[in-house]
């Protein structure tokens, strides 16, 4: 369950990373379609990273002498990772809801104290989650490291591949 929640979070994050890679590159006013395309590109770049970390986890699981114990260890690591990401995700969702559905002054508040600083904090939160997962569990370290690097690379990769210049 923890692993599935993390995977879902990683996919949503990849879509947002794709969107962020596109923002600031298109001066048009109506651009919902292009923003959705960017989110899909984020997903497309995020999925291989997710698959790779899954493959590392599976190989560690099947390579273990005691698979039940290894599974429990990896699951506990995933749980620690999730505990780091859940509060961050909750604040993002709250800020986004306020931004999208609130009056414009509330929207400004959501951006100024929520979404702006949260974007800056994101790499630190990703790393904190990876460290928490690896804490006291050597097998979890490569899984969380690959997952964190994969998550952090989506935005620069999409930006470099599709949005290096204004579109």
């Amino acid at each position, binding site marked *: 369950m923890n692993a599935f929640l993390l995977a879902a979070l990683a996919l949503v994050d990849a879509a947002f990373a794709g969107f962020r890679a596109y*923002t*600031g*590159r*298109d*001066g*048009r*006013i*109506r651009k919902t379609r292009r923003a959705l395309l960017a989110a899909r590109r984020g997903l497309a770049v995020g999925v291989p990273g997710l698959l790779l970390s899954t493959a590392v986890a599976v190989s560690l699981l099947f390579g273990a002498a005691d698979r039940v114990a290894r599974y429990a260890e990896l699951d506990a690591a995933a749980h620690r990772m999730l505990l780091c990401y859940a509060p961050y995700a909750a604040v993002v969702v709250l800020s986004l809801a306020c*931004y999208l559905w609130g009056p*414009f*002054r*509330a*929207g*400004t*508040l959501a*951006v*100024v*104290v929520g*979404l*702006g*600083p949260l*974007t*800056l904090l994101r790499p630190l939160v990703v790393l904190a989650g990876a460290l928490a997962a690896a804490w006291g569990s050597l097998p979890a370290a490569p899984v969380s490291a690959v997952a964190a690097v994969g998550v952090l690379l989506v935005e620069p990769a999409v*930006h470099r591949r599709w949005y290096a*210049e*204004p579109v």
Partner: protein
Amino acid sequence: MQLLEISDLVVDHDPGTRERLPVRRGDVVARLTAAGDRSGARIAAGLACDDAGHLDPLAVDRRLVAVHTELQRLSEELRLGDRIAELLGPLLAVIRAAGSADGPLRVVDVGCGLGYLVRWLAASGVLGPDVDLVGVDFNAALVREAERLARAEGLPCRFVRGDAFALDEPATVYVSTGVLHHFRGSDLDAFFAAQATRGTAAFCHFDIAATGLAPIGAWVFHRARMRDPLGRHDGVMSARRAHDDDTLLTAAAHADGLVPLMYEPRGRSNPFCTTLRPVIGVRPELLSPLRAALGPGPSGRLVGRADAEAAVRREASAGGGAG
């Protein structure tokens, strides 16, 4: 310490002919260094130039267009369009009702950059079909890009090259966003004075609210949202250079015949909700209808100097007595 924006230094024009003048990179770097701005000087030193040391004008234009495209993201996220429409809607309704415009209503955005505001107003149609929307900017590359973007989406607006200090475009309402802090001292006075033409019913200029929070907020926001170091540098400088309410009210008084007011001044707004606020000027006869059109809540956020407002009230009651 003098606060300089790199984008102000890398383009120069002959004010008379509006011809572009070559800019020496060394001069830009020297000015920033003299101002104690080492990071700005480093960014300027990385700009492309020819063998004679002149900045490559095409590279500068490309860079400025890219920076302004990133900058548009801030206007989008801070819902600048909604913010301005909240005031312009009632203002134009009052002008229509008073019949005080000769000919069609015209909103002219001075220093429009890529014309986000004008294009947003054109795309949303919030001001009504009887309003001409025009953007004016001194920078030819930005005007060309604004025009290209408007055509790409078939938006009913246009963009022209022009100087804020010698406006060729008449307007019912002059507007601007993020421009005021570029002008200081007598230039700021002249900016407002240039808008006091016979046909002008009002102006409404939005700029960064000068609060203690603004430079920190600008740093966080530009760091999080902009990639180009030049854009980040200038964004933070803009917040540090922002004029306080009093300076704006004093300068706006140079627009003869228009009563200067601040909307959401310091102390009447939450700095987390109001990062940009406007200085407004209206013909005296439009002031009380405008307050009525805004309604009791927003009208309470519209504050002028006591003496200027008292003069308007005296004039109104004298006019009422005569009639």
